[in-house]
Each structure stands twice: as C-alpha cells, then as structure tokens.
C-alpha cells in the first residue's frame, strides 16, 4: 500500500492552501526530514517535510494549485520494497484543473476526512465572517478599500512614523521576522533598524525602556508578541507609564502605546488565552482601546500614537486576517473614547468590543429572524468608557445584554451593568445580563474550548430572556 501524503493544516484555522512548489519529483527517494514541497497559507510559505521513507510514486496535485483542501491527498509514496510504478498505477488519476471559485479542486482524501477542528475559536471566526458592520463614519462619497485588520494596523504605524520622527516600534520579532503575526510587515524595510527594533525576550526590560524613552520625549510603540507576555511587564505599564503624569503634577508625560494581540486564539491553552481588557481598564491614567473592525483599528491606532497619554491597545489574533472596508483617506484618525452603534435596533442593546462584536452581530441577525430587533454597540475604547452612547441606547431599548470574550467576574460587562444600575436604572425594563466566556482557565481540548468561549447562541438566549420572550 502506498502511503498517502495529505495536505497539511499549518494552523488550527487553516482550511485550504496553495501547493506552491514541489521540491521532489516522481521517482525520487525520500527519507524523513526531507523537504517535499512548499505550501502557502494566508500568512506564510511553509515547508512540508517527509515523515515516511520511500519513493515518490505519484504527484497528484501539481504545483501552483490553489485552494487545496486540508487533508486532500497530494502525492503517494511507495514504501521500501514496494514497486513505485505499481503504486502509482493503483492511484486515483490527478484531478483536472477546475475553474476558479468553485468547490474544492482536489477530491477529498479517500481515507480519513480532513479534520475540521470544531473549536470555539473557529466559531468566533465564523461569527465574524458571517456578519458585516455598518459603514464607518466617513464623509459621503469616500472611496473604500478592503483591508485586513493586520494591514490596517501596519498602515497606521507606517503613516504615523512617516509624519513623526519620534515614533519608533520595538518588540520581539517585529523587524526581521516582520512580526510574529506579521503586523509589522514591511516596516523595517521602510524605516530601518533605528526605528524598527527587534528586542531580546525581555518584556519587563523593553516595556520599561519604552516608558523611559517616552518620558524622555520619544513616542514608542511597544509590541507585545501577545498580551499574555505583557504580564511580565505589567509593572511598567501601570506603575511607570500610567501614574507618571499624575505623580509629577502634570509635569512628566509618558506618551507610549503598548500593543499586541489579546484574548483567546485557537487551541493555545490556558497561559496563552486571556483577555486583559478589564485588567487595564481598571487603571486610572491609562487609555485602553480594543477595536473590532479594520477601519477602527487603523483610525484608533493612529489616534493612540498621537495621544499624549499611555495607551494599551488590545488587538485580536483571530481578527488579524479578516477584511473590512477601510476608508481611503490620507489621514483617517478616530476619536478615542467614543463607542459606535454598529447596528441599529429597537428591542434590546447588545454591548461588546473586540471579537465579541462579531458574536453580538451574529446574534443580532439570528434574533432578527425571531422578530427581535437588536442594537449592537462596539465600545472600541474601554477606558474612558463611552457611557453616553450606551445609556442613550438603553433609553431607547430598555434592555441590555453585555457580550464579552473574557471572564465574567469583574469584567467590562460587570462595569456596564453597574453603569446601567447607577445611571440608567429608570430606563431598565429587565436586569442587565452578561454573556461571556466560562469562568475557567481556557482548556486545550477542542470540545472544552468550544464550551468555554462566548457563543452567539447564548447571546440570543439572553436577549430573548430580557425581552421576556
């Protein structure tokens, strides 16, 4: 029996990829560790190595084929002592190239269906993909371009670096590697290694260095590879950056941006999946921003870099590759501290931020199918919190459900509930409900992860409950 080589999944969210190049040909003998092919995903070109020994009997997917499904058989290897030509003859014929934008070009493998990882993270991404946000606030007639969140963030940094010589970017793998998640792609090339700086793995050190440089008059953008690692450095974010202006009686400023991905990614387990929004939002002296769409990511990151205060800018890895409409304007800057109504509705207000907005929008669509007209608010900034927008909506709908990809206890949702109690009590027709992740460290197992993360179904249920339906 020849061994089937299958299209590998190179990340838990990858569904298909391009077979860019074969580095072996039929008849070649290979051993484990030999590089067989190069495979492109949306993020990178990866090498595909042999695990089994034998002879390449048949290449089933020619190089240059796009949209090859994960798990599809791409070649056959005849094991030692097996006749390669016989093995090839026994194989299914190579698929004829199909026209673009059609169902899979490559037949699914006969043995072992490609495994779709049914995880909570995949569901979150699906919610985002299913929904659209209303146009960002731009003058009528503005040209829009589709951009990923990743590109929007990069452009924001590049634009600010072009206009302000004091801005520099520092962090692990931000320069030569182009960013662990490719957010700083191209910055080294354009701005050089004086302004785009790879650090050793030493978060406490470079966060402090950044804060000091900001005190001295520069405008650092400090990237944490993920915010999980910022816990090494949280002392500088809070004790050094957040309190300086106050402690110095307004004399010494610390205009710095700490940015990076925050929140759960896919299957990375308990130490790599936390939402620090509520942590930082609890600290006076900090600005905390957590955008959802690419347009907001761009406009708010530009604002953050210009801001004279220390900013914690929370991105989301699962959103990086997602595209949104971004206005094509020379200088698209958004106000800090302003939430946005991303969907108007009359019956219930869903308040969220970051990837939770996708979940809320998804829930709103489902609710519409059941005759409930939900309004969705994207907070965008977590501190200072735009209470006015929330309270105004509450006045209209009289019902509120908070949606958050994060733990429930002492969360942004908890804060929103308190705001509604203190300042919107008379408008409430039902208790405010919180729909969040489960109150446990994030488990690795796919089924448990799915159970642990916030879900659109639960938002629908909560909305119905507050509408007494």
């Amino acid at each position, binding site marked *: 029996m020849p061994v089937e080589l299958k299209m590998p999944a190179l990340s838990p969210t990858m569904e298909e990829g391009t077979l860019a190049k074969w580095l072996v040909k039929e008849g070649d003998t290979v051993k484990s560790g030999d590089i067989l092919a190069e495979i492109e995903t949306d993020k990178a070109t990866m090498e595909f190595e042999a695990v089994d020994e034998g002879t390449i009997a048949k290449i089933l997917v020619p190089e240059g084929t796009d949209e090859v499904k994960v798990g599809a058989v791409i070649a056959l290897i005849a094991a030692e002592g097996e006749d390669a030509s016989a093995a090839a003859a026994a194989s299914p014929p190579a698929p004829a190239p199909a026209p673009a934008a059609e169902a899979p070009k490559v037949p699914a493998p006969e043995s072992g269906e490609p495994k779709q990882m049914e995880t909570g993270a995949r569901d979150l991404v699906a919610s985002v993909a299913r929904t659209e946000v209303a146009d960002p606030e731009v003058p009528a007639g503005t040209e829009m371009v589709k951009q990923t969140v990743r590109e929007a963030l990069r452009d924001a940094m590049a634009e600010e670096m072009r206009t302000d010589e004091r801005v520099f970017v520092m962090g692990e793998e931000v320069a030569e590697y182009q960013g662990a998640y490719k957010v700083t792609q191209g910055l080294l090339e354009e701005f050089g290694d004086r302004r785009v700086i790879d650090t050793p793995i030493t978060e406490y050190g470079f966060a402090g260095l950044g804060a000091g440089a900001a005190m001295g008059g520069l405008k650092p953008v400090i990237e944490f590879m993920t915010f999980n690692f910022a816990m090494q450095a949280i002392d500088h974010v809070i004790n050094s950056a957040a309190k300086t202006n106050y402690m110095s009686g307004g004399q010494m400023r610390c205009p710095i941006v700490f940015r990076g991905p925050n929140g759960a990614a896919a299957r990375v387990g308990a130490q790599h999946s936390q939402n620090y929004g509520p942590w930082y939002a609890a600290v006076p002296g900090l600005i905390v921003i957590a955008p959802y769409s690419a347009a907001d990511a761009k406009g708010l990151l530009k604002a953050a870099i210009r801001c004279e205060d220390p900013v914690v800018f929370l991105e989301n890895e699962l959103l990086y590759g997602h595209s949104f409409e971004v206005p094509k304007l020379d200088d698209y800057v958004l106000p800090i501290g302003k939430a946005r109504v991303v969907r108007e509705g009359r019956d219930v207000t869903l308040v969220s931020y970051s990837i939770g907005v996708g979940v809320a929008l998804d829930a709103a669509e489902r609710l519409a199918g059941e005759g409930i007209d939900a309004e969705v608010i994207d907070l965008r900034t977590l501190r200072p919190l735009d209470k006015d927008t929330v309270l105004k909506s509450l006045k209209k709908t009289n019902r509120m459900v908070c949606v958050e990809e994060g733990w429930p206890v002492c969360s942004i949702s908890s804060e929103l509930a308190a705001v509604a109690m203190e300042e919107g009590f008379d408008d409430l027709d039902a208790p405010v409900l919180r729909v969040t992740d489960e109150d446990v460290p994030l*488990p690795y197992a796919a089924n448990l992860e799915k159970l642990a993360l916030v879900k659109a179904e639960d938002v629908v249920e909560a909305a119905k409950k507050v509408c007494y339906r």
Partner: protein
Amino acid sequence: MARAASSKGAAPRGAAKKQTPGAAPPAPNRERPPEPKRYKATRDELLDYYKQMLLIRRFEERAGQLYGLGLIGGFCHLYIGQEAVAVGLQSALEVGKDSVITGYRDHGHMLAYGIDPKVIMAELTGREAGISRGKGGSMHMFSVEHRFYGGHGIVGAQVALGTGLAFKHKYAGDGGVAMAYFGDGAANQGQVYESFNMAELWKLPIIYVIENNQYAMGTSVNRSSAEDQLYRRGESFRIPGIQVDGMDVLAVRGAANVAVDWVRSGKGPILLELKTYRYRGHSMSDPAKYRSREEVQAVRDKSDPIEHARKELEAMGATEDELKAIDQQTKQVVVEAADFAEQAPEPDASELYTDVLVGSY
C-alpha cells in the same frame, strides 16, 4: 565627570598586580568543577540512549503529521534535532527523586523521563486519556509521579520555578536535585538572573540547562545576546558554567555526571550550555525563513545525534538487523501511541469546571 575620570584612573581596590600579556591566567579563587569527559558508555547503555533518542524523533515526526491532519491544534513545538540533550542529561538523574522542569518544547523531556508516549500523544490531541486530561495541551504537561514539573508557556518562568523545586529539595533534605531547562532566548529574561543570585546565595541544588539551539523563534543568539557565550551567564553570580556539545549524547552524559556530582554534593548551582539545533520551525506555524535550507541540511548531515550514536553502535558491533529491529519497534510504539491518541474520547463536558480549585468554598 571629573569624579568618574579620577576613579577610573585609580587602581580598583584589591586588584591584582598588572598582568603581563601571555602570562598564565590567574588561579581561580574558588573551586570549580572538573572539565567533563565524554562518557564511556557500555554497548547496552548506548543502545538505550539510542532507543530513547529514536523514540523522541519518531514521536515528534508523528506529532507533526497529526498536526498537519488537524488532530493537534494550537502551538506545537517539536524537539527534533535536540534529542541528545534531554536523553544525555536525564540519564544521569533518578526518576522520581530528581525534579525536571522545562518550557513548552517539552515532549522530548517527558519521553526521556520514561513517561508513556500514549498519554503524551493523547494530550496533544486533547483527549481525556491525556496526561493533563486534555486540558493542558502540548505546552502544558506534568507528571508529579515522575517529578516532571512541566510544561510552561511563559518564556523564562521555568527557571524561577525550577529554583523553587531545588529549594524544596534542600529544605526537605531529600537528596534530590532539580534540573531546569530553558532556551537561548529565555536566557535574556530578568527572572533568570534573579534566580541565579538566590540559587548561589542559598547553595540550592539545581542544574540550569540552557538548550542553545541558536534561535529564539526567528532571532539568532548573536542578535539578542550581548554575551553570546551563554555558559558564562552565571559567572557573575559565581555559578560555574560549562559548554557542552549537545549533539553528542555521550558528551552530554559526561557533562551531566560532573553537574550532578557538583550539585548533589552541596556546592550549589551549576550552569550547562548545550549547543544544539532544532531542525523544524519554532512551532508548526513558523516558516523559518530566517535561516537557509543549507544551514539546516548541513547540521542534519554532519551532526545528527541519532546518526552519530548509530555509527558508534555499529563500531561497537551492533548489527544492521539489531538496529533495524529497534527502528521497527520504535515505529510500532509511536504508531500505537498515535492510534490511541486518535481514538481516545474527548474529555467529558463536565471536566470544563473541574480542577479550577482544589477545595470547595
């Protein structure tokens, strides 16, 4: 300024007389461990190391494959290329008495401590039968029974934690030592040096092991380290350091003996820098464009620890058939582990809420 200049001119207090160039280096003012010798293994011993290294290699290759099939998710860091380090070092330890701790690249260290490949693989696939009941994943595996303490995802954390394990050994007087592994990249975290200071100050029984595979993700050692001879990183804390060829299991074992003797006899910590290399990307999603294919191939061709041991075994009289049989057995063990890991059920939904706290309140 003036003060700085004058103090610079003055001879530092207690400084030795000016040295003439070329003179013998000053005699060290404190005891140092002896220069390690390559371990003279018996045929059976070497065969045993060979089997262990091969098991790690085949296990990791299979894990990479299962990742590609979507059975393993998230971050998965393979140990391929570095096998001689864990096997050589841990062969000098006593399982269940001496503690081992490492980072997220942990599968090899577990296998080298005799932990069942099945429960490791089942953890990688996130199943109930996994060693962390599917809740930890590739980066978070533990076996208190073996005194294998993880499995940590935060770069550098295991160094302070390992120092705590050593503290426990000393506190309890149980005769055990701790071994804390960390990478060349982790060697730049501040807590490493905070730990070094305490360990030497309190003469804690710990072997610090820097697995210098020359890259931290995409950053090579010389781009991240002012002192790139990492074995010297403990010297200012008076921790002796030794550089070791981490691609030669017997050189590693030789150094392990020196380190274990030193630490067990109460002389305090020691630092080993193992020069090694990872063949694969940092994790499954790293395209590894920061190094050339030729660089990787050259190491595979010239310095592979398993090939190396195989040749040596042949020279010691191991037959082709004997080695082939080991290959077959190893493959079989790994195939069984993979099948087990694929078939084992996922954890029960109720597991979501267990193990958050020990007590109920």
